[in-house]
């Protein structure tokens, strides 16, 4: 059966037809889109670990599910990089079969509870929802996804997807972030013997070291990892492919295919004076200390600077994560410094909204040009150049240009630089024969994620340079399908 036929067949199941007919489309579209329940902004800006979004209640979820029109041609699915059968899981929620809904998610997604929290649905599935064509807000697909995944986890009845008969073929995955986990899950389901190698001491990659607890609790990630273990995926921490073991070692150990998903390793800096002062750091360092090392916990041996006047440079999701973390660690003044205007900010709208509610100041159209320190080399001030928007640049966004003679000096005691990352050079350096772009990313065939080395596939930020969890997961799925096909030949 083709994908289209499969979608149609499931849509034609009797329960679903009956459900569809139980309400007129007009009744469905008249329902107002649900709003996420959230922790109080003032309270949460001082609590380090509690999740901001509280999820939907059963009643809210079932009502929101009614909004979905169960379209014959579900365009939402085209917006999903891992091709979740969206109407099928939503209609299961509508009829109250929440565990069934979770099973549908797990058919194609290794991390539904994660995606339900951190995917930019407004740019993916929800951007293709029929409701938008009628001038109404999209169905809250992301909230519903989270609801189903959370319901299953909290119920204790966690299903394990069907696994094909073991074929005995060993597959290596380099990196345990979203791309690696998604790939590992798909290959394990196909019967492969999958081992994931992780450089850090914890599994999860950016889901653990990058995304803060208040947006994605570690215990949620751990449950999803446990699910992969149940599929038979093996994990090896503290092992760096290219350092601890080599490409040749993997071959000698009988690995037939390798998926490189080592992520975006190197933080970018701006190369401006004073950037190496004490108290100026990358968002990777700051978030790793707080998230992975739990440095704000007095029990942890790892220290972290807890500034009172903190500036975060950049306008992406990582910048929002950093500034909101700083606020929670006691910053009286937590500032976003961004060289363009709010409209061009790459961060999700929800993150910007949450940051503002939590008292974060936005210094848009400002660009740091220098940091000044005290006699002990600690950062004390930043000099900001005011900017205005000029002609569009290569990215299509209007280019920020300095306004002559307008430089401001602001007191700071901590600066977090969040202006993007570059690919980790470890894998490209260690695997002779890979094709590497000028930016340092691994070059792959976009159709199948295969690199210049026939047994090496790659995906996620090591290929994209810096993208989202869901795009990385989509790469993992695509690579798994292609590697499986190649190995079957």
């Amino acid at each position: 059966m083709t994908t289209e036929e499969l979608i149609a067949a499931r849509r034609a199941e009797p329960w679903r037809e009956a459900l569809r007919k139980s309400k007129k489309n007009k009744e469905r579209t008249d329902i107002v889109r649900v709003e996420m329940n959230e922790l109080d902004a003032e309270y949460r800006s001082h609590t380090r670990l509690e999740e901001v979004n509280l999820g939907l209640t059963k009643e809210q979820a079932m009502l929101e599910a009614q909004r979905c029109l169960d379209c014959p041609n579900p365009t939402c699915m085209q917006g999903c990089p891992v091709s979740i059968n969206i109407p099928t899981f939503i209609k299961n929620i509508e009829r109250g079969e929440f565990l069934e809904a979770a099973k549908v998610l797990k058919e194609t997604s290794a991390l539904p509870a994660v995606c339900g929290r951190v995917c930019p649905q407004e740019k993916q599935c929800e951007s293709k929802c029929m409701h938008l064509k009628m001038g109404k807000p999209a169905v809250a697909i992301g909230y519903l996804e989270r609801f189903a995944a959370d319901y299953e986890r909290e119920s204790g009845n966690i299903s394990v997807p069907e696994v094909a008969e073991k074929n005995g073929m060993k597959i290596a995955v380099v990196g345990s972030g979203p791309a690696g986990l998604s790939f590992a899950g798909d290959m394990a389901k196909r019967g492969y013997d999958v081992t994931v190698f992780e450089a850090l001491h914890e599994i999860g990659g950016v889901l653990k070291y990058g995304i803060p607890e208040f947006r994605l609790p570690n215990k949620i990630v751990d449950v999803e990892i446990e699910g992969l273990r149940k599929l038979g995926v093996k994990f090896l921490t503290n092992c760096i492919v290219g350092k601890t073991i080599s490409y040749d070692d993997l071959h000698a150990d009988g690995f037939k295919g390798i998926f490189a998903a080592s992520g975006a390793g190197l933080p970018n800096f701006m190369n401006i004076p004073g950037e190496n002062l004490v108290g100026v750091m990358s968002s990777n360092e700051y978030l790793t200390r707080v998230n992975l090392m739990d440095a704000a916990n007095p029990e942890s041996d790892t220290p972290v600077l807890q500034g009172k006047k903190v500036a975060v440079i950049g306008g992406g999701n990582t910048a929002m994560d950093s500034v909101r973390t700083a606020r929670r660690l006691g910053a009286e003044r937590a500032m976003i410094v961004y060289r363009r205007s709010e409209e061009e900010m790459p961060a999700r709208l929800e993150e910007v909204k949450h940051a503002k509610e939590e008292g974060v100041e936005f210094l848009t159209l400002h660009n740091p040009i220098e940091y000044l320190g005290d006699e002990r080399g600690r950062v004390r001030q930043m000099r900001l150049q005011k900017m205005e928007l000029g002609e569009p640049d290569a990215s299509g966004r209007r280019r920020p240009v300095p306004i002559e003679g307008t430089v401001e000096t602001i007191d700071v005691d901590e600066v977090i630089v969040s202006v993007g990352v570059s690919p980790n050079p470890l894998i490209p350096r260690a695997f002779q024969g890979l094709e590497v772009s000028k930016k340092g990313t691994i070059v792959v065939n976009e159709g199948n994620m295969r690199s210049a080395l026939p047994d090496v596939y790659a995906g996620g930020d090591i290929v994209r340079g810096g993208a989202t969890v869901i795009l990385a997961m989509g790469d993992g799925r695509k690579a798994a399908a292609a590697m499986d096909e190649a190995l079957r030949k």
Partner: protein
Amino acid sequence: MNKIVSKEHFSANVVKLEVEAPLIARSRKAGHFVIVKVGEKGERIPLTIAGADTTKGTITLVIQAVGGSSKKICELNVGDSITDLVGPLGQATHIEKVGTVVCAGGGVGVAPLLPIVEAFHKAGNRVIVVLAARTKELVILEEQMRAHSDEVIVMTDDGSYGTKGLVTNGVESVINREKVDLCVTIGPAIMMKFVSALTKKYEVPTVASLNTIMVDGTGMCGACRITVGGKTKFVCVDGPEFDAHQVDFDEMLMRLGAYKDIEKK
């Protein structure tokens, strides 16, 4: 995993541990380091590898108890395991035959200097080792150094052993007496700064192995960044060895103190 198979006290605060780590023992080269974490809530700290035994599958680490985390490691005993150990990290020392090499080590920096001394000697160089310590009891690995070099000069601050003076006095005495083609220095940052200043004056090319604050050790965080020749470099992936004459040691010293005020315990 990572079980401690032997422990030796070099002095009250300096401990040598032999740790089971067969994969690292096999792949490490002179100059590489590892990241070590002790306990679930432990801190990740870098330690340069002081040696390895591939048949036993062990690596050697020499640690000085200076802060909370290094003390925790020093308190481990034979049979205990290091919670997390990852490596080998960094770029290996570039070893070639250059002629005469002076290797200047101070404090626990002497330990990671040993594999470098061995490698340069093996490559056919004339190797002169300058070992420096505050006092006699703190001089470590003298015998092993003698076994792999042409000469060992011991310097103590108080003159209790060898010649009274600093590591720089020892290095200068060699430079004054014969042609030196390369100097390699490992030790406290302040010591390397002065060795570098001295060899710069005599135009002797010098390599320093730097030990900075790190978190992941794989290039991800940038905590270890320093300025070399006016450019920012990451010690973990670009180093740990750099042309000492290009290193901004004052900035490095300042950055090493980043968490002095808030270091835990």
